[in-house]
């Protein structure tokens, strides 16, 4: 046995003896509860809430480090991103993140956090280890959603009031181009191969399809559904389906990525906002803000298989791998 492996085994044994669950032993979903100032922890296997973590004021956007050991939560009322030890289930630090941080994304290697700064109309790159902003660029008005391409080269930042997506090169950190998309763009999701990006637009009720290589909008999908306000978006690991939460529409739209057609709408809790998929893509989680719960969808059957209570103002969700 290699020395590193011995250390790992010993670490697990010590953790077990102390009653601490090692990170990554089984997947958990983490749900930010905006008005309860806490994170709900859901055991993915049993589909039950197993813990809550007090995290700070107004948690919304979430991210997990690649190794699953650290959960990051944007604290809108504390101008910071909280760092949570997922094994100990407690906050171990805070990273300054500018005024009223709402959403952010981690680089694939976990070394950087990219965040939008709404009041400053800017996006920032934060060094996770140094816990400081290392670069900043101007984007559109009211920046919101942040996503990183699978290869880590591109950061997409939506700006709600200018209806734009700023495409930012990661190194050096600079805006490469800006695209006009639907009215009030919220979030972006990339296909696993990084060839396409999907951008939701809440007021436009559309999803813009972007060719990542060409940096161009190549299609627009309209949700022809009363009350649908597209917000969260994720793409299945097989790249064939995109899932979009519709906010006040109380549904998740299922989109065929090959045809750009809406295949179905799945009724979930009230005001689904954040979305997350398990690594194998079999389960989809929706954080439902008004019903204060999480709907768990079996993506093969398109049915909700469990509803788990969360906290007041359930907002974002991530799933550990």
């Amino acid at each position, binding site marked *: 046995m290699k020395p590193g492996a011995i250390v790992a085994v010993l670490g697990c044994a010590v953790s077990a003896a102390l009653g601490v669950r090692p990170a990554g032993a089984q997947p958990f979903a983490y749900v930010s509860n905006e008005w309860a100032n806490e994170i709900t922890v859901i055991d993915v296997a049993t589909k039950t809430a197993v813990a809550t973590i007090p995290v700070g004021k107004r948690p919304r956007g979430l991210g997990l480090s690649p190794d699953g050991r650290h959960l990051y939560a944007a604290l809108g009322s504390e101008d910071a991103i909280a760092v949570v030890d997922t094994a100990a289930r407690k906050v171990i630090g805070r990273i300054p993140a500018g005024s009223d941080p709402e959403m952010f994304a981690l680089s694939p290697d976990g070394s950087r956090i990219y965040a939008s700064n709404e*009041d400053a109309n800017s996006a920032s790159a934060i060094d996770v280890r140094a816990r400081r902003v290392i670069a900043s660029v*101007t984007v*559109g*008005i009211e920046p919101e959603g942040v996503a990183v391409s699978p290869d880590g080269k591109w950061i997409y930042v939506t700006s709600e*009031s*200018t209806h*734009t997506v700023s495409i930012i090169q990661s190194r050096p950190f600079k805006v490469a181009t*800006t695209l006009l998309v639907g*009215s009030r763009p919220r979030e972006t999701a990339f296909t696993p191969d990084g060839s396409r990006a999907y951008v939701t637009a809440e*007021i436009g009720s559309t999803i813009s399809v972007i060719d990542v290589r060409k940096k161009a909008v190549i299609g627009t999908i309209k949700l022809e559904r009363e009350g649908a306000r597209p917000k969260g978006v994720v793409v299945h690991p097989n790249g064939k389906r995109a899932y979009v939460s519709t906010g006040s529409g109380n549904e998740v739209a299922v989109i065929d990525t090959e045809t750009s057609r809406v295949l179905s709408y799945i009724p979930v809790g009230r005001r689904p906002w954040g979305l997350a998929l398990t690594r194998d893509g079999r389960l989809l989680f929706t954080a439902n803000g008004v019903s204060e719960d999480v709907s768990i969808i079996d993506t093969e059957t398109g049915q909700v298989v469990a509803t788990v209570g969360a906290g007041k103002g359930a907002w974002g969700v991530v799933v550990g791998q």
Partner: protein
Amino acid sequence: MKKPSRSERPETRVGRISRREFLFGGLAAALPANRAGRADLRIGLLLPPGPLGPSILRGAKLGIAEADSLAQMFGKRIDLALSPVPGREGVASVASRLIKEGVSVLVGGGGERAAEALREVAREGKALFLNVGSASDRLRTELCDRHTFHVHASVQMHVGAAGHWLIEERKLRRWAVLSESDEIQRAVVAFAEARGATVEEGAQAVSGATDWRPTLERLRAAKPEALWIGLRAQTVPGFLQQYGRSGLAGELVGITPDATGPPKLGRAALSGIWPVMWHHTLEKYSARDLNNRYRRRFGDGLDGANWSAWAALKLVGEAMLRAGTTPQALLEYLESDPPFDGHKGRPLTFRKWDHQLRQPMYLAQARKAAPGESGPSGVEVITEVPRGDLDAIVLPPKDGGCLRL
């Protein structure tokens, strides 16, 4: 042709409002080289005399800043030509001159006559007119024109918002109306007839009246569940004072569709429910973000007239990027139901049959005093109306609507 006097000459450059003030930080540095050239779109802003003018100007400043910010990202430029209007008679000549100088879109309309003049100039000059200052229903019906779009909410929308709430939420269907404006009185009666309410007493208020005792006695006899008032700003305080003393208990609804908001009265003096287009305390659906942007720039709260002007400029800027710069391209785009984000939480579109921007309204009332608190009350929003279909606060068009598109 008569040369316009100095006072009629419009200020046709942005210069009076510092260019720097318009731009958002680092964006200016990222301008492409061709930005030094001719503007891609010129908008003329005609400021009415009176309190509405400064309010429209402030909203327009924020609107053009944001529209130009967006335009810059795509190498475009929008210029705003400002012009105070030297009296109602001067509106047409100033607007005509602006169009000759290359303005494609007129924004303004303080009151019905000014708005009517701008509508006529826009129609003849094949420009667009965005009305941000007149609630007149007549402009949206018998005087409607394809080149005119109404961002400002109509009299009917103000009445419909409160009427819908009285009927659906308060279950109050026996009304009386006291108005100095025929238009408000007609709108209340029409809404009541269409929605199953009755108007027990309809009185035309005498302008400048100070003694309301005879009117209040008639109201006492009629016993309405709700009283609508459509009085001039200077008339309202005296009426509310006597109404308060009268002991009448019905719900009071104040309609001030062409003003910047409810009368700014002391806490004890302001009573009733007042429909407004916007309020600086709104927070939901990103309203807080817009209010914050305005507050950062001007230090105080955004009101309905500010919102109208902001929305008009923002709308035109977005239309230019998505459709083109010619008036015809802009017109066709605005008629195509593009969803406008007015920070009201849902897509706002121009109605096909009268070119009115469909939008939720808000009902405001005097804010309750905290213990020991005195001084001006300010108002607070109690609800958004309607919650569902935006056409619930207007009546269906006669004969398919004025425009019959």
